[in-house]
């Protein structure tokens, strides 16, 4: 079963990093394959930043796609409207403190949350993308939750082990929120 995800945001939000962590985690699962391709503007913070992730138990066909099963918008301020990336059955995860609506994007499945607010709540203001990863994994169960955390420790903790605890808090907070939102439906 091939699952496609587009993470879309702006430079500096950790879009590419979040996509890579998912893929590294997927590769730890026997029989799973992953591809990751990042498209970004020319070395400018705030420019467009899209990350294409595919995870499958078979050989992955296209590593880049215009629309995906899951779209994760890291902000409402993306240069291209995330609505363009949606199919009828796409789940749109929207990270914003604002009260936006599914109808604004033509999304049939819509998960709205305030990642920055949540990161601030766990005293990790730079952990927004860890919260986002947690919500995504908690809501979709796309990969084993502990495996993703283990990968966060490996990839981020190698150089900065002092942030492991903060990153874990942010990730677990997102995870709970994701599960709770699914249960509430």
């Amino acid at each position, binding site marked *: 079963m091939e699952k496609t995800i587009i993470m879309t945001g702006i430079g500096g939000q950790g879009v590419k990093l979040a996509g890579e962590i998912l893929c590294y985690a997927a590769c730890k699962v026997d029989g799973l394959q992953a591809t990751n391709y990042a498209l970004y503007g020319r070395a400018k913070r705030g420019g467009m930043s899209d990350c294409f992730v595919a995870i499958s138990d078979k050989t*992955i066909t296209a590593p880049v796609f215009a629309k995906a099963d899951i779209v994760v918008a890291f902000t409402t301020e993306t240069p291209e409207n995330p609505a363009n990336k949606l199919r009828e059955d796409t789940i749109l995860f929207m990270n914003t403190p604002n009260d936006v609506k599914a109808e604004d994007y033509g999304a049939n499945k819509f998960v709205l949350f305030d990642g920055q607010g949540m990161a601030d709540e766990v005293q990790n203001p730079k952990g927004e993308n860890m919260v986002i990863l947690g919500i995504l994994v908690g809501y979709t169960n796309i990969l084993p939750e502990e495996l993703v955390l283990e990968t966060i420790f490996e990839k981020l903790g190698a150089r900065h082990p002092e942030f492991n605890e903060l990153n874990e808090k942010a990730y677990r907070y997102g995870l709970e929120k994701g599960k709770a939102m699914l249960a509430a439906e």
Partner: protein
Amino acid sequence: MEKVFMKGCEAVAEAAMRAGCRYYAGYPITPQNQVPEYISRKMPKLGGVFMQGESEVASINMIYGAAVGGTRSMITSSSCGLSLMSETIGWLISAELPVVIANFQRGGPGIGDIGPTQQDYFQATKAHSNGGGRMLVMSPGSLQEAIDAVFEAFEKANKYRTPVYIQLDGISGGMMESVMMPDAISDEEVAALKQKAKEEWAVGKMEGRERREIVGGADSGLPLQTLNQKLEAKYLEMEKNEVKYENYLMEDAEYVITAYGIGSRFARAAVNILREEGYKVGMIRPINIYPFPFEAYDAIDYSKVKGILSTEMSIPAQFIHDVQIAVKGRAPVYNYSTSGGVILDAVEIANHAREMMK
């Protein structure tokens, strides 16, 4: 063998060193800069040489020099970088030197831009240098195939005493994918390969043998026509032995999508979409683009197949010319292509295929 998640440029770099490459030269150009970056860190630890030349021209001539000494050598670049190397590519062919050249295609013509394309089909297969020389040209469709192609390229380069060209692209260079990385050949094997080259053809200490000079053209010691006949015999040998392609769901196909390299991944996804809708569509994918797999298109059952859609990331389309020659008018050939960093999309290919099937 180990399963790893790697970026394309780094996978090619790692595979080259594991396949025994001990001399790399290059000059920076996007989107392949991670190849020299990766090799610069690791090659010195292997006792090999990493050289950042002062230009593309200097770098490929360094490769010429390393190959003359029998060292497994590789160079990578992108599109306009390869244009600058054009003269020496002809010299390498003429002097029969086994090197591996990889192109991570970006936009063109000219400076183009850094977006991924397949805009160098003619350059790779027909016009990489003056004088009509040929090289084996591989076109991997995945990072696993790219890794395997690197190993195979060094083998084939030795077998035919020729440069071998690996045609990649900006997506393959920048994307990450899970791959099985083969074990490295041992230092002893690397030394034995060099020793064998020294014994058979390379230059170095003479040790009782005749003096050797490795130069091409009229300086080779052969009349030029005789040299070109010798080279042609090699091209014909490659055309006999090195045809490589994949048929995907072709058994009952009434329509065919044909694509190569990275483009074939989007084409395969399009075939899957159309199959789910009940269309009998298959795919032909050349894996080596020289020699071109004419036989794959001869094997099509033209009493059943009503149309062929050729798709690639190049405007104007180039690959389609070889497809048209191969199809010989036995079915209509349609084109759908993109350019300038616009990546093919499976849904769009499927839309164009549905148009063809109307």
